């Protein structure tokens, strides 16, 4: 159980789609202030309806939802929509292939997706027939284990009844047919996409093996099996966990005598179908998977740990302690932590000397930026600001971990215009940011470190070392950003740099 999920329920499968994050939890994506004022703002709940006068592109929940399911092995993803929806696969298919290689998963098939190519006629008559043809084509050409259909805005608005069709096809073909309702316009929080994806997964893909009473009981074998099962844990990966992260976290859990299964991204459909068979489900990011873990608890009784994100020493320790407590391994975990932190602290010394006193700004997913900020703080750096894409109950306890409670907070999905004005004043020595943000910051002359990456290790003790090493390396030569700032222009009028970027946020009337 978790304090973070107190009061939340997860019985939504009778509905076609998962509820949006705005309906399910209090959340906010437009707020400007400091750690202190954010805490107050969240307390009164007034910030959840804030909006912007000038807005820039955030994300689409369809991409996040399909980002999860398209990583499954031997599946075909169908995007029910016009040709633009899901077109980002063109840029991502290659990185997917690299990720499969890095994660030592089969690479025998390409990432396959199909778009139903809805046109203006379909907007009037509906696109169900095209969807049927696409599903049958996928089955015939690829014989996948699952065909997963992402519903986009157009069918969502015109009211295509995809579930009736897909239920009908589910019984006719060998592949599992899984609808995902992830229409972009439904939610301003892209994290809704995680719930949308897992809603479909939970509905159609989770099938525990039926167990029968043994005809010939064997006490020794049975108790062995029971013991083994009591030690199996599911470690839930997310789109931004690298293989290095998975190896490191598995290493630590294995040291506590646990048997770790890393799920569900890059897993086979068979592995996902048995997701309910574990003694404990362990999350590394509440923003990603509380919907999945909460539901598994309600349906199968599997306990879960949703606590912190194991980035940095403090948070890795905390994460391990909560897990160990569940298995009554409090003493053992302290032993593990003692050995690990002693070795790590020694290894970090040379980097601390370099990083001490330097300032850092972190932007990206809420739990990731606070924990990454805390790590750099523990290395002697000053966290001068944070830009969470959204902010909700899952990250509230993390506010306290920032030493300077007057550090700037800009809750903003993307919105580089606001962020760049803030950074032009704070002038941090280092920026750590989400993909698609770092190039803008470079144009401001600030060196950057990516907040995540499939070929880097960020989590656990080895991740802390890697992050320290990375920051120190980046600061060894900052020529690129210094050259760029004097040669490449940002697209703003001078007046924007003189304004208060938070005036851009429209406070909702309570």
């Amino acid at each position: 159980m978790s304090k973070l999920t107190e009061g939340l329920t997860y019985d939504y499968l009778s509905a076609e789609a998962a509820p949006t994050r705005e309906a399910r939890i209090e959340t906010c994506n437009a707020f400007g202030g400091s750690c202190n004022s954010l805490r107050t703002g969240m307390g009164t709940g007034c910030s959840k309806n804030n909006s912007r006068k000038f807005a820039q592109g955030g994300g689409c929940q369809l991409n996040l939802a399909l980002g999860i399911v398209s990583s499954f092995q031997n599946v075909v993803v169908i995007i029910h929509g016009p040709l633009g929806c899901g077109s980002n696969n063109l840029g991502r298919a290659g990185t997917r292939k690299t990720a499969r290689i890095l994660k030592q998963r089969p690479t025998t098939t390409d990432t396959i997706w199909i778009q139903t190519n809805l046109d203006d006629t379909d907007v009037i008559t509906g696109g169900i027939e095209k969807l049927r043809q696409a599903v049958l084509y996928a089955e015939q050409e690829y014989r996948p284990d699952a065909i997963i259909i992402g519903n986009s805005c157009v069918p969502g608005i015109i009211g295509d009844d995809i579930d009736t069709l897909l239920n009908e096809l589910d019984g006719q073909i060998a592949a599992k047919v899984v609808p995902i309702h992830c229409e972009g316009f439904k939610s301003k929080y892209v994290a809704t996409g995680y719930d949308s994806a897992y809603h479909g997964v939970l509905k159609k893909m989770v099938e525990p093996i039926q167990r029968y009473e043994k005809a010939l009981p064997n006490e020794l074998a049975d108790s062995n099996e029971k013991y083994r099962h009591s030690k199996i844990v599911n470690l839930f990966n997310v789109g931004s966990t690298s293989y290095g992260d998975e190896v490191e976290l598995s290493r630590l859990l294995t040291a506590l005598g646990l048997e770790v299964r890393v799920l569900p991204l890059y897993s086979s459909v068979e592995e996902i179908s048995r997701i309910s068979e574990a003694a404990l489900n362990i999350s590394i990011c509440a923003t990603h998977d509380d919907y999945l873990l909460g539901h598994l608890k309600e349906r199968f009784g599997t306990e879960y740990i949703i606590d912190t994100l194991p980035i940095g020493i403090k948070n890795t320790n905390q994460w391990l302690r909560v897990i160990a407590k569940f298995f009554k391994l409090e003493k053992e975990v302290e032993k593990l932590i003692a050995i690990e932190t002693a070795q790590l602290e020694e290894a970090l010394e040379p980097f601390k000397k370099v990083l001490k006193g330097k300032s850092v700004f972190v932007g990206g997913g809420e739990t990731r930026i606070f924990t990454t900020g805390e790590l750099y703080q523990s290395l002697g750096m000053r966290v001068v600001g944070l830009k969470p894409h959204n902010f909700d109950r899952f990250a509230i306890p993390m506010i306290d971990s920032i030493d300077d409670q007057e550090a700037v907070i800009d809750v903003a999905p993307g919105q580089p215009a606001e962020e760049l004005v803030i950074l032009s004043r704070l002038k941090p020595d280092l920026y750590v940011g989400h993909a698609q943000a770092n190039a803008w910051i470079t144009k401001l002359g600030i060196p950057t470190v990516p907040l995540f990456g499939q070929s880097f290790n960020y989590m656990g003790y080895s991740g802390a070392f890697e992050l320290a090493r990375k920051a120190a390396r980046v600061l060894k030569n900052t020529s690129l950003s210094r050259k760029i700032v004097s040669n490449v222009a940002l697209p703003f009028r001078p007046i924007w740099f003189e304004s208060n970027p938070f005036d851009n946020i429209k406070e909702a009337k309570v």
Partner: protein
Amino acid sequence: MSTFIERAKVTCALGGAIVTLSALPKAVPIVHASGGCAGTLSGTYNLASGYKGSGYCGGTMIPTSNIVENDIVFGGEERLEEQIINTVKIIDADLYFVVTGCQVEIIGDDAVGVTHRYKDDKATVLAANTPGFLGDSFKGYEAVLSTIAAELVEKKDVKDKKTITILGIVPGQDVFYRGNIREIERLLNQLGIKANTFFGDGETIEKIRNYGDASLTVVLSENYGIETARVFEQIHQIPYITADLPIGASRTDAFLHKIGERLGIEPAEIEALLAKERKYYYSYIERILDIYTDLDFQRYAIISADTNYAFPLTSFLADDLGWIPHIVVIHDDIDDLRKKEYELKFKQLGSETKPKVVFELQAGQLLNHVRKSWKYNQNDKYFDALSPAFLVGSSLEASVAQKLGAGFLPVVFPITNRAVLDRGYTGYKGGLTLTEDIISALVSDR
């Protein structure tokens, strides 16, 4: 009726509009749609077009109204108006351009009307309807450029005989668009021809306003840019012709002769330029003769491309490089008549063998078409295999090349295993670059 497409090598009309606007000098799109459209579609090209990146105001920087469910119910025109006003206030651009997504078009927002009502002496704001369901990226390219031709380009009664406008090279969808434009411009300049290119080096919105004095539009495509060319014809009385993208020596000769003839340039002048270019070209081609002939680098060519690239690329491989054009698989969604017309082009090839030409929308069918194009191996003792082969396509074809045991170079969108800056494949110079890249692919494991 259109059909589903497996791994379409395009985005939607909105995606095409965004990538076109982002490629125009200091132009900024204002996207009236849900929050994800702008970033996703721009992001597709930022990565898949040889890592061309966000540029001046692309990617997450794109201003957008971020319509949500509430706006779908009550209409999003007010939100759009607010977004336009604030974009002009904050973002420094020479042209602002409102483009629309599916959501707002289905509910009937009048984005063009809202834009026209917006008046500001300091800012030029245009608009076009570009919902994804209108069709593929090329539709968005046409929507943007035809609006510019109709509403931004000033009418001029006097035409300059030696000025032409180039269309058909679609930014993003043509990964090498800037390099390709640059070389075409260089060649034309040598004949005293000024080229209006929209996206080339040194273009400005101010220059685009003055495109009305061109005497000819040259569309380097049989399918894309035609709609805009017709607007230039109707509103500015500028006629248009189509021509093949001049990739390499043979196609450049044909291109310059065609343009020269049309503009009344003496054939001798064209020949003199071509002779100069040819001399330069072969002084470098000479370098690869040893390795080409000693290692027998002639290949069976398998081409997977769109109609802009398919024929010019095949012609380069067959006519310039001396390869055997075996099969050409084209993925454009065009009607049967256009397919027939396009197929006829391949009769021009100088090679003794002419390729099989197939139109296929589904990316996954390429391997099947190649297999069907050659006698099946029945485990014969003596088998004349389709080998050595080389596949030129997009990055999606990497695994097909691997399965065929063929060499491979991605030249067509999407390209994710190469970074492309100012490289281009047009002209004699582009022919050298393409030769360099192909031979490099053949020796890259050494």
